[in-house]
């Protein structure tokens, strides 16, 4: 009896090791497809409930700030409305000049909505699983956004789901550009502490409050997607580069719906 138990244990451990080896060869696809169609759709409902609970506690703890936040946001809306009408005029001028110079019209990417069905189940890596995959036209490397801000990049795709590496993942790297001063650097996530933009030349100027956008360099992601806002700058004259701390513009916690940019 003991011998049978021991061989059963060995068989189970061997099965586990075999699955890992299969995955390295890409042979676990049928298993992933099975999970895509059975388990992850249920996860979507749980994500919605979890996000609701998280938002409730966040709001309850933040209630004393709501009045001042409301006033600040009303002022911001009024300023943005003014800016929108100025931008509309600028867009018309831009299009006219492009036509006159013979430039091609820039093609905006098409946005595909996708629900979040699962998150990275532990605390140091930052990924999420979307409920749409290659069947919807999603490919590896595509940008994922929400409310106009960068969420991350598609890292893995199957027929019905895709994995997205978030901007806050420590392994995520993207070339960023200061929208105001045009200083460039590499933006990457760090554990539990927002984003860092480093490799900024000492001669470049970066100010607190500046908006950081994707630069489009290397063709990884489209240019102009908002990454976040500069919170603090670390300048040391003895260093080759300066570093800035960036708060991500997208609310990466409690995400339920995001958009994948395709066709850029």
């Amino acid at each position, binding site marked *: 009896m003991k011998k049978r*138990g021991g061989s*059963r*244990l060995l068989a*189970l*451990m061997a*099965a*586990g090791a075999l*699955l*890992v080896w299969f*995955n390295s060869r890409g042979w*676990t696809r049928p*298993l*992933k497809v099975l*999970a895509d169609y059975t*388990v*992850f759709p*249920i*996860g*979507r*409902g*749980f*994500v*919605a*409930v*979890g*996000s609701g*609970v*998280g938002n409730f*506690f966040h709001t309850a703890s933040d209630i004393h700030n709501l009045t001042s936040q409301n006033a600040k946001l009303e002022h911001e809306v009024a300023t943005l409305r003014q800016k929108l009408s100025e931008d509309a005029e600028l867009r018309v001028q831009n299009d006219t000049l492009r036509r006159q110079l013979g430039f091609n019209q820039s093609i905006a990417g098409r946005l595909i909505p996708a629900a*979040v*069905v*699962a*998150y*990275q*189940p*532990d*605390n*140091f*890596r930052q*990924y*999420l*699983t979307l409920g749409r995959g290659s069947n919807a036209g999603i490919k590896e490397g595509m940008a994922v956004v929400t409310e106009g801000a960068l969420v991350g990049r598609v*890292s*893995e795709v199957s027929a019905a789901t895709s*994995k*997205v*590496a978030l901007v806050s*993942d*420590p*392994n995520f790297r993207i070339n960023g550009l200061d929208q105001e001063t045009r200083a460039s650097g590499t933006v990457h996530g*760090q*554990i*539990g*502490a927002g984003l860092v933009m480093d490799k900024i030349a000492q001669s470049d100027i970066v100010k607190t409050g500046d908006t950081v956008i994707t630069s489009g360099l290397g063709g990884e992601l489209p240019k102009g997607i908002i990454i976040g806002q500069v919170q603090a700058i670390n300048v040391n004259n003895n260093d080759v580069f300066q570093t800035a701390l960036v708060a991500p513009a997208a609310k990466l*916690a*409690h995400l*339920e719906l995001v958009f994948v940019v395709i066709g850029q």
Partner: protein
Amino acid sequence: MRPIKPLLIVVLAALLQASFLAAWRPAGVIPNLLLVVVIFLAATRPASGALAAALMGGLLLDLASGSDFGLRMGFYSLVALGVVVVKRLGGDYDDWALLVTTVIASALVFNLAVLANLAQAHIEISWRLAGVRFGIEAVFDLMVLGLLKPWSRYLDV
């Protein structure tokens, strides 16, 4: 029904961890619900049943994860086997001290494994922030342990 019940329980625990708890993130961390469930299963069921359930739960979390496929399967299997060994050496998992030690030590080992993978890829790690995050997770893992302990006897039918 006997072999299916632990498998259903770990499937539910893995699903809740990867969706509900990961979306909620109390205090910004995800409690390791599956770890507590695997420990209870390994403490109350035969070794092969506990290992099969740990493998299943770990596999589901690996499928939900975007990195390190196989890490969770390996980790939860080791936890199940470790609990079985301690039980055979005379450990009593009705004792709170042993339960708390197992949960904290296991969570620490797992987080160190993830951080080691990042360090190997030359990612800069703030060990102070990682320690704070682990500390908060450990507190929530112990809260989950406290919530589930009265129900653990229902795992052995």
